[in-house]
């Protein structure tokens, strides 16, 4: 069925009220047998959906949970319902055919999605990948191990099952004698060894492996890219969020710019995380870093204002006053490059970048913009460019950007957490001596 029709098979223009009512009636009728919690059923049976042709690549999606605004919901709906992209409602030219869902909390939406779309929930990851058969039966696997109830370890890291999900997928690949592209949402795992093993598996079996955050690919305000080969000497990201959570997003924000520097990414020599006064001392002690923090803050749209004002004068003293317990990760690259990621909770709620070019006054800065529901928007459309990059990988059998980026940002996150856990010590990271070169092509959203 063409995405340009409403499912009735009629040639009537798709905006016709008559056509709409007709399709709604039939859809509502079909939905009357929907399973799932009654409250969910009532809300979700309201509208039909546009269906796509089935002669396309098939995707399995492995999720921790599917509820409103969980990461899996954003990915699933973009594959099933399409999304606004480059001036049209884009339907991925592929088909999400199977789900594995680990948990079903109140407000679960997975049942609704399977009622309204030709996608099935399977009881195991293996069956989601084989569609109930013996061999791999899909053309790509998307792993969304974010949100859900999982235990924390002694360092406070939530043990999302990304590694175990991935390994179950790899087992299917090995049993089937073939492998297909895999996407892993956010950082790879909460253990370095597991993360490195995931990357090694992808290399051993030769499948494209894409991972990470939406920050590197979302809108930038202004729309700037780090010119490939720039002699960059320091990057700063000012953002917000929690340890073992948004720290990863902040590190991805900085790394997608840092990695484009002259010589490419050289690897990471050491990581140190500081909290509160020591962090602010570190910032104030370095004039260049202080300046970059101010440049990045000047790209924010959410800096907390003093009483009686709607925005503040941007200054370090105001930043410290609003965020006295801020956390900063200080990353030393092996070529001398420095990356600093500051989570300034209480001061702002967006992601901003500034980078200093060597032997120059030039500073490149922007906000990496997240249209964030429900406060500012109704859709988390920063997932759209991420899904679009997944589509590109599936169609081309090539990851649009290197998995080494995510391996290093995973490592920066893990060693940052470790540093805090061990009393904010500096940690040498020889295991992260992983150089890579990113493609010149930009992958962020700008059209």
């Amino acid at each position, binding site marked *: 069925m063409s995405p340009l029709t409403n499912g009735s098979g009629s040639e009537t223009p798709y905006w016709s009220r008559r056509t709409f009512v007709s399709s709604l009636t039939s859809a509502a009728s079909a939905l009357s047998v929907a399973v799932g919690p009654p409250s969910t059923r009532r809300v979700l049976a309201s509208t039909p959906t546009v269906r796509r042709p089935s002669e396309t690549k098939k995707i399995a999606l492995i999720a921790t949970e599917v509820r409103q605004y969980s990461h899996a919901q954003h990915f699933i709906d973009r594959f099933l*319902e399409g999304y606004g992209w480059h001036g049209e409602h884009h339907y991925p030219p592929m088909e999400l055919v199977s789900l594995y869902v680990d948990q079903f909390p109140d407000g679960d939406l997975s049942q609704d999605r399977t009622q309204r779309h030709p996608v099935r929930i399977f009881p195991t990851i293996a069956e989601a990948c084989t569609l109930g058969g013996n061999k791999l039966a899909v053309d790509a696997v998307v792993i969304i191990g974010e949100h859900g109830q999982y235990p924390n370890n002694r360092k406070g890291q939530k043990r999302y099952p990304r590694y175990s999900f991935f390994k179950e997928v790899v087992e299917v690949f090995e049993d089937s004698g073939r492998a297909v592209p895999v996407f892993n949402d956010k950082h790879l795992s909460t253990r370095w060894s597991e993360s490195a093993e995931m990357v090694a598996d992808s290399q051993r079996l030769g499948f494209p492996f894409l991972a990470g955050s939406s920050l590197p690919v979302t809108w930038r305000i202004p729309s700037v890219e780090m010119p490939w080969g720039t002699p960059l000497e320091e990057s700063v990201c000012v953002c917000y969020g929690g340890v073992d959570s948004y720290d990863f997003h902040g590190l991805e924000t900085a790394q997608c710019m840092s990695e484009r520097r002259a010589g490419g990414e050289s690897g990471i020599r050491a990581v140190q995380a500081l909290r509160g006064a020591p962090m602010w001392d570190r910032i104030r002690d370095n004039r260049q870093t202080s300046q970059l923090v101010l440049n990045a803050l000047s790209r924010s749209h959410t800096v907390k204002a003093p009483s009686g004002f709607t925005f503040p004068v941007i200054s370090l003293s105001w930043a410290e006053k609003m965020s006295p317990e801020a956390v900063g990760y200080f990353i030393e690259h092996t070529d001398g490059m420095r990356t600093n990621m500051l989570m300034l909770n209480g001061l702002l709620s967006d992601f901003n970048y500034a980078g200093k070019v060597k032997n120059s006054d030039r500073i490149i800065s922007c906000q990496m913009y997240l249209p964030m529901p429900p406060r500012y928007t*109704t859709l988390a459309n920063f997932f759209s460019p991420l899904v679009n990059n997944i589509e590109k990988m599936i169609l081309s059998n090539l990851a649009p950007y290197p998995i080494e980026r995510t391996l290093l940002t995973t490592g920066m996150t893990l060693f940052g957490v470790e540093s805090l856990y061990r009393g904010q010590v500096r940690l040498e990271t020889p295991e992260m001596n992983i150089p890579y070169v990113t493609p010149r092509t930009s992958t962020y959203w700008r059209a």
Partner: protein
Amino acid sequence: MNSTGPIAVLVEDFQLGSAAQQLTDRLLIGYPRQGEFHVAKGVPIRLFSENKEPNDLIDKRIRDFQLIDAKHIKDALVDAPSVLVVPRGAGHHPSEKLIESVLDGAIPGARIFVHGLLSRSVRDARNLVEKARLRKLTIIASSYMPGTWRLPEVEVERERSITDAAIIVVGPSEEAEFLGIDGLLPLVDRRLGGESGVRQIQCFEEDQIWDLLDRQPDIAELMATAISRTDTPQGDPVRDGRTQDLVKLGLVQQLAKSPQLYLLEHSDGLRSWIFVLNGVIADFNFAIRYADRSLISAQFFRTPQPNAHHWSALVDVLEKFFETGRLPWAVERGILAAGIVEGLAETRSQVKRVYKTPRLSGITYSARESSLIRR
């Protein structure tokens, strides 16, 4: 910033989050600009507020930022080469009293920026501009719409023909219509030949809109293109976060609350469409079709409250205007905007009737070379 004299700011009221506060504070305190916090130093800001109730916000600025409280309009205007006039609200109801006072009292050569509309009548707008000219004053008016960020950062290519332009706006009727016009005109006046004037206006409501879209799929496509840029679809996305093809699923007409569509027919044949679609989306988006049928589209990005840095984009424009005296856009745009607002009000009361606008058909002007959008 102009170093030869103070800036007079004349406001109807000064409340937190108001246009008056957002604009005045940026001139007084500074604002983020191109990755730095830009401060205009050394220029006294004199504020006259029509509302004489005690105001802690003004007192705080007098105390902390050397704002000068002008008790009378003439106290604000004396020796001020730059004047900012800010009415209440979004600027869709201009303060005729303040504007007239400025035209009577501003020093010769003064540069005057009016937030919002010059007038709600083309005749009055013309008279204001003529009066300013006779007194050697320069007066322009606008909202934040022409300068704010666009997602993506697209601009109409100069000297290319446009056949249709559509903007989708939401909000209270008069405010939404004004912001729609103020967003639309800076886009279309960049076309080949520049702005040619508007010869007639027509209003459609409710089912008339869907009937028109049935008959004119090109316009439906334009609307769909603009809607594809939204981050705020209403209905199911609000309830469960799903993405949704509002147009192809027929949801636009189901969600729309008292929808209105205005068709502006320009003298050169361009058709501009202003959709007021409350209940469908909650942000402002546009789409333009070039003569070769290619489309461009974007969201007008109004940044989160309370910072609302789309005001920074406007202050950047007016600061340069005050500093250089160079007009960021033609004065005629403000006259045309006033005339279109007047025309829209007329057509609202006589739905579907074609409303001829001979007084607007001869308003011609060209866009400035450079784009004003925030980059």
